[in-house]
């Protein structure tokens, strides 16, 4: 595939995404609104973080809100927005149409993934700027580790969303399924409020949900956690990394086996 065609495809997919107000709202506006709303309310609550030498460093909730938001933004994209694009391609015969052109089919998955990544980056950048200007948020982590965690979470949820909608031929059905899966994940991950407030059984369910791992991973890494730091799930950070990797890999394999082009 020639570079001009690739560029045109990505630009066109970006324009299509911008014309989908629901997806933009969920990935950019809603996280910003949540960030500001929580930042001004519970944002001032202190988070003491114990360092190795027994030193306790004090952060505030608003410092870490952004990291948690990005975790569920990747989930919104993977479970709700990406399947909308792919199911629409299936529903309207767009995969079939491109199959009789020189466009390789896999590009029709790569292009929305690239567009989604751009939207996540924009959402993150906007929250960083607003967080820095409004809340003077602090970052104590390793930027590369945080970036890796965002990427892993993004790909794992994209694979998850692709796998569960691999044979769905209606965008409405895909939207219903996506929201039905995302909503409980969102609540039980702790992004909606502290997990400790939930009944034990719901906490246990939450422990197995990928969004809980992504949420803990990002918030803990943001505050300077190491691979060995134990998160609210009760496992070290590296276990959440591996867990998301396993979920992603299983879903990629499932997608490859189940995916229908028409």
């Amino acid at each position, binding site marked *: 595939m020639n570079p*001009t065609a690739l560029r045109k495809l990505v630009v*066109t997919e970006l324009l*299509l995404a911008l*014309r989908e107000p629901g997806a933009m709202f969920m990935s950019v506006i809603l996280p910003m609104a949540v960030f500001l709303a929580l930042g001004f309310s519970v944002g001032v609550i202190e988070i003491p973080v114990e360092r190795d030498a027994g030193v306790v460093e004090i952060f505030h909730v608003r410092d870490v809100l952004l990291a948690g938001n990005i975790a569920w933004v990747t989930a919104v994209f993977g479970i709700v927005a990406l399947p909308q694009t792919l199911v*629409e391609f299936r529903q309207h015969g767009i995969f*079939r149409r491109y199959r*009789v*052109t020189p466009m390789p089919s896999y590009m029709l998955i790569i292009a929305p993934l690239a567009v989604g990544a751009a939207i996540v980056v924009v959402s993150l950048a906007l929250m960083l700027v607003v967080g820095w200007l409004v809340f003077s948020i602090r970052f104590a982590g390793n930027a590369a580790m945080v970036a890796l965690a965002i990427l892993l979470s993004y790909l794992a949820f994209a694979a998850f969303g692709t796998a569960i909608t691999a044979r769905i031929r209606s965008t409405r059905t895909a939207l219903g399924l996506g929201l039905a899966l995302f909503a409980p994940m969102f609540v039980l991950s702790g992004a909606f409020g502290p997990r400790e407030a939930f009944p034990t059984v719901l906490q246990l369910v939450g422990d197995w949900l990928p969004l809980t791992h992504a949420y803990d991973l990002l918030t803990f890494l943001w505050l300077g956690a190491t691979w060995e730091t134990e998160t609210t799930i009760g496992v070290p950070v590296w276990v959440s990394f591996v867990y998301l990797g396993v979920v992603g890999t299983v879903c990629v394999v499932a997608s490859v086996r189940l995916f229908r082009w028409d």
Partner: protein
Amino acid sequence: MSREPSDTLAVQVTSLRKVYGDVVAVDDLSFEVERGSIFCIIGPNGAGKTTTIECLEGLRQADSGAVLVAGLDPIADHAKFVHKIGVQLQEIGIPPRMKVREALHLFAALYRTSLPLSELSAELELDGFLSKRYGSLSGGQKRRVNIALALVGDPEIVFLDEPTTGLDPESRFQFWEYIRRQNARGMTIVVTTHYLEEAREYCDTVLLMNEGRVVTTGPPERLIAESGLAARVVLPRAALGTVGEDDLAALPSVVHVRGTETSIYVYGDGNVVGEVSDFLSERGASPGVLEARPASLDDIYFLAVGPEGPEGGG
């Protein structure tokens, strides 16, 4: 069963067979399309036209038989094949939120060469809605966009599945004018249609399919000549008295008779008008001036396919 690729043939189909469950969609179908010709597949709904064309496009794998398009196997040689063909499918194929202009530019970028977009847009009358979203277009507008996307890569061979369905007469005329000009430049056109007058007027070769098989194939004028049909006479039943279908069918010049509630249609050779006229006079029936017209592709279609066909009403 396979064969050697040919330089003079755009499409070579040998004993093609495709089955869906218990339904045999295409059965032992063989035909050839000459390079640079306009080739038309006609037949009733369910005849296997779309299945055939989708096998040629590489969208469906035949159960048996061989297909060569531009000397290539549409599935095994897919990467080369897609650069040589253009396709218009019956289904949507474009994201509803994509604007027409975006679709044209994107598709043009996929090919090594492309037709001038301004000319394509003007000829297929897309100029009025280039900035509109595909999903907001009327059926006829969508069809024209899909035709434009099939042609934009300036393919060697273009496959059009019912391109003129839903187009008004003026748009159909414009479409065929443009197609003929592309054809004159050397583009091979493979098209399906329900409009038999189009097939006769614009196509070099017609393939009439029914129930997945070839009924007849050849240049439309030759098919008409070889059918033995020269004319069709329509008789108003009310004026025929005791004369019925069987009486007319017994006349030597008559090939086929079909009665409806109000009329009897008589198909026959060059003598049919005179013979029918004489016979009616003998029997004292007085239908007045006989309504007759030269035989057409419709008649051949009707006699082969029966009253279920789209033009079967006569």
